[in-house]
Every structure is written in structure tokens, then in C-alpha cells.
């Protein structure tokens, strides 16, 4: 009798234990869900509060469009950095865009199995290499190359230029863009391709007029995501781009992109008034631009997938 009661009790206890465990697990899951949900807003608010000081002091327009950068005198004009960032980003996309597009078509429609077996690890490893390694590579190989190229073209330079940064950056974002492009091109339904081929179009015509046309929004958004990745890249660019505060006027001149500004000056930012606020403002610009590009591109992908 007693034994029976005990066993029922223990069963009940066991049951309660299981439910309790479920409750505990579920609530921890919920907590982690909330953390991630809040993270982007915390990021934005934190950076905004910190850079609010300087926005109050000087007008937003002056910060963004003045090229006077004298932290000691309290003059903060971000134009040289913004222009440098734009140069490097746009150039790198121009360099790697066509390469990625052609290679993505190759890998999705022409390559044999063996080729794909090689290319998957290649893309993975390229994506995994840390940016500082890209920077070292840039210093070893690209800097001397650009220096010689510039000299032979009549633009003598040290090799640490906008173009160097763009080349290093373009190799860095290749795996990123390529992966998205392959995914995007693969979402085009096979039937469309077959229909086009059965109507007598050649393979290239099919690709050009059916597949590329159908996946056009996806391709644009892949480049958009690439731009946002390139815009925020720090160490690799910092190592090869020259870091001179001046509005660059050509690809063979040194530049000073926004991420490099933040990374280079974090050491002294607490010793000069308003400097930390200015650097946080730079981080805020990065955050806003990158997030805007990301949201736009992701939305375009979702939209185009829905249409197919």
C-alpha cells in the first residue's frame, strides 16, 4: 500500500520534473529570442546616444559635407572619409561584379561535377580567411604591383592607394557575392529553361534572355549585399589604403575610408574632447548605410522569390 503511494508520488514528481524542465528550457529560449530581437535596436540607440553630442554641437550637414578634419581644433568634417569609402566600395564592386556573375553562370550551368567539388571548398576557404590575412597578402603582392603599374602609367605612387584597397576588397567579397548569386540563379525554375531550349534557343540565349532576366532582382540584391559588406570592411583595407586625410581625386591616390578612421584612432579618442563622439558618429554612419543596403537587398530577394 505504502509502496504504491510512493511510486505514484514518484511518477508525479517525475512528471512535474519534466514539465518544469520544459518550462525552464522554453523560458531560456524566450530570453535568447528577446536578446537577439533587441540587439539591432540596442546597437542603433547606443551609437546614436554617443554620437548625439557632436550632432548637437555641429549641424548634420556640416558633419557630412565639410572636409575640414582637425580634431584638435574641434573641426570634424567627414567628407574625405565618406568619399574614400565610396571610391573603394564602388571600385571593388566594379572589379568583382563581372567576375562573380560569369563564374556563377559557369558553376550553375556549365561546370561539371568535378569542377564543383573543387570550387565548393575554394569558396568556403576564401570566405573563411580572416581579413588581416587579406591585408598581409595585399601588402606582399598588390602594393608592389600597383606601385609599378602606377609608375608605368605616369602616376607614381607608393602602392598604398584606393585601387590597392579596392582590389584586396574585391577578392574578399567574391565568396560572399558568389554564394548568393549561385543561390539566386538556382531558384529559377527548370521548366522555364527547358521551355526556352525546346523552342530552339541556344544555351547562351536561354541564359541571357530567360535565366538572367528572371533572376535580375536577385543579382542586383547580391551586389547590394556585397556593397554593404565592402563598405564596412576594416582591417584589410586599413592596411593597404594609405590613410591620408584628403579627398582622393584618382584611383592612384591614397584614401582614408570610414572604418579605417575608427580603427586607427580609437587609442587617442578619449584624450581629445568630442573625438570619441565623432568616431561613434562614423560608426553610426556605417551602421545606417550598411543596414539600409542590407534591408533593401534582402527585401528585393524576398520579393523576387515570391514572384517566381
Amino acid at each position: 500500500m505504502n509502496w504504491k503511494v510512493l511510486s505514484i508520488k514518484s511518477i508525479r514528481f517525475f512528471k512535474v520534473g519534466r514539465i518544469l524542465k520544459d518550462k525552464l528550457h522554453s523560458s531560456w529560449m524566450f530570453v535568447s529570442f528577446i536578446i537577439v530581437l533587441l540587439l539591432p535596436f540596442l546597437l542603433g540607440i547606443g551609437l546614436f546616444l554617443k554620437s548625439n553630442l557632436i550632432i548637437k554641437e555641429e549641424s548634420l550637414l556640416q558633419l557630412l559635407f565639410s572636409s575640414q578634419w582637425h580634431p584638435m581644433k574641434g573641426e570634424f568634417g567627414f567628407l574625405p572619409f565618406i568619399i574614400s569609402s565610396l571610391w573603394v566600395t564602388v571600385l571593388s564592386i566594379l572589379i568583382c561584379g563581372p567576375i562573380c556573375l560569369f563564374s556563377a553562370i559557369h558553376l550553375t550551368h556549365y561546370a561539371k561535377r568535378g569542377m564543383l567539388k573543387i570550387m565548393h571548398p575554394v569558396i568556403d576557404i576564401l570566405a573563411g580567411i580572416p581579413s588581416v590575412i587579406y591585408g598581409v597578402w595585399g601588402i606582399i603582392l598588390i602594393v608592389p604591383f600597383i606601385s609599378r603599374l602606377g609608375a608605368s602609367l605616369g602616376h607614381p605612387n607608393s602602392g598604398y592607394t584606393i585601387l590597392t584597397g579596392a582590389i584586396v576588397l574585391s577578392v574578399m567579397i567574391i565568396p560572399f557575392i558568389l554564394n548568393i548569386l549561385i543561390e539566386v540563379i538556382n531558384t529559377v525554375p527548370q521548366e522555364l529553361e527547358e521551355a526556352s531550349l525546346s523552342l530552339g534557343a541556344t544555351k547562351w540565349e536561354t541564359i541571357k534572355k530567360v535565366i538572367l532576366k528572371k533572376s535580375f532582382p536577385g543579382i542586383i540584391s547580391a551586389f547590394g549585399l556585397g556593397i554593404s559588406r565592402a563598405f564596412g570592411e576594416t582591417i584589410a583595407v586599413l592596411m593597404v589604403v594609405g590613410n591620408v586625410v584628403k579627398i582622393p581625386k584618382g584611383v592612384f591616390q591614397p584614401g582614408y575610408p570610414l572604418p579605417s578612421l575608427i580603427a586607427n584612432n580609437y587609442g587617442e579618442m578619449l584624450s581629445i574632447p568630442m573625438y570619441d563622439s565623432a568616431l561613434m558618429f562614423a560608426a553610426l554612419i556605417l551602421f545606417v548605410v550598411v543596414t539600409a543596403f542590407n534591408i533593401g537587398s534582402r527585401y528585393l530577394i524576398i520579393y523576387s522569390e515570391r514572384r517566381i
Partner: protein
Amino acid sequence: MKRKVLQKTEEIFTRFLMVFSTSIIVSALLLIIVSILYKGLPSLSWEMITQIPKGGYYFGKEGGILNAIVGSLYLATGSTILGLIISLPLALYINIHKAKNSKLVNFIRFLLDILWGIPSIVYGAFGFTVMIYFGMRTSLLAGIITVTLFIIPIMVRSMDEVMKTVPKGLLESALSLGSTRSETAYKVVFRQSIPGIVTAVLLAFGRGIGDAAAVLFTAGYTDYIPNALNQPAATLPLAIFFQLSSPIPEVQNRAYAAAVVLTIIILIISVSSRIVSNKFKQRRIK
């Protein structure tokens, strides 16, 4: 007829461009690895990876980069564990608890993709402001927390990609046998998606070890191996970066050697993630 010829030449030309582009990508990887090894191997020595910097190290005297190697491993391990504690429950949560609420799940995926895209220097700057706000100094802990923040989206999204493919029937049969949702999560879905989780962990570990911008502000730099969470820690990428900006050739050569060490660690991670995930894949229920 003429049109045919034109078409043919266009096709041949573009096929040439395609092969050319793909070979550029392959050769870029080869160039990176070969040039790093070529520059770095001559100055890589046993004492470099087993000693911490000694007096005058930054003027070309004796010592090694053990402080940076250990610091990086601490940092990456700590943030991977911390990241796993948050990411795994979240990935399970959106795939089991909220599986029916597809709008919410899609929103979370969208949000994670956005978070993934935010550059690590922004996380670093954010980590720094929070650190200053709480009156903390640069330390291993601050570094770990900052790196955790930016590897969470990477981990959740890559686990999520695998958990999505777990058959619905499996989930339903587990629930219908009377298991609670968290039991289903950890005993069925978790086991099914181990290959994806292992890949996610290794991916995050690689990111943690290779990132420089986020730890630049938060982890600091030191010549000693940290033995507590509140001490600053050196990291391998920063060791490379600082030594390379020195004007002394011996110190620069050591930076190249350190780059070899980092590259080898990354290659090991990449290869092992491939092997491990292939091994686990064979045991999955389809």
C-alpha cells in the same frame, strides 16, 4: 547564316569569360596561400610559437607570439561557448515552438540576416561604448562579449538552415508520443541537426579567431598570457597588424610568420568542419 555565326562567337566568347572568371577565383586563393607561406615560412620557428615576447621583442630581439595565439584561442573558445548558449535555444525556438507562426519566424530570419551584415567594427564600437558606460577596462571578458554579439547571427542562421530540413513527421511523432517540446527539441531535432551545429560552431570559431576590428577596442593588447577574465588579451590578427606596421624588417618578418600560423589554424578549421559534417551526415534519418 550571319546571325548564327554571331551567336556562335558570342557563346564561345562568354564561355571563355566564364572559365576565365572561375580560374581567377581559384588562382586568387592559391596566390594568397602561396604568398603568405613564401613570405612567412622562412621566419617561422619553434620559439616563435612557444614563447611570449621578451624584452626588446619589438626591436627584433627574442621572443614569440604565444601570448597572441593563446589569447585568440581563449577569446574564440569563450565567445563560441557563450554564443552557443544563446544561439542553439534560439534556433530550436524558431523551428519548434514558433514553427507555426511563419510570419514571426521570417521576421527573425530577416533580422538575423541584417545583423549578420553589420560590420564587426560597428560591434566593436558598440562594445566599447557599453564598456565605458559600465566603467570596465579593456579585457578578455569585454572581447568575448563583443565577439559573441557578432557571431550569434552567424551561428543561428547556419543552424537554422539545417533545422529547417528536419522532416516534419519526425517532430510530430515525437510530440505525439508524449514528449514535451523541449524534449523534442533537444533529443530529436538537436540530434538530427548535429552536422549543421558542428559546422556553425566551427564557422563561428573561425570568425572569432580571425576578427580584428571588434577586439581592437575591447580586448586590448598585452605581452602576457591572460589568466583571468578581467585582464586584457592579445589576439593573433592584432599581433600581425601591429608587427607589420613596425619599420624594423625582423619584426615585419615575424608578422608574416604569425600570418602563416593564423592561416594554418583557419585551414585546419575549414577542413575539419568538412570532415566532421560529412561523418555525421551519414547517421541522419531522412
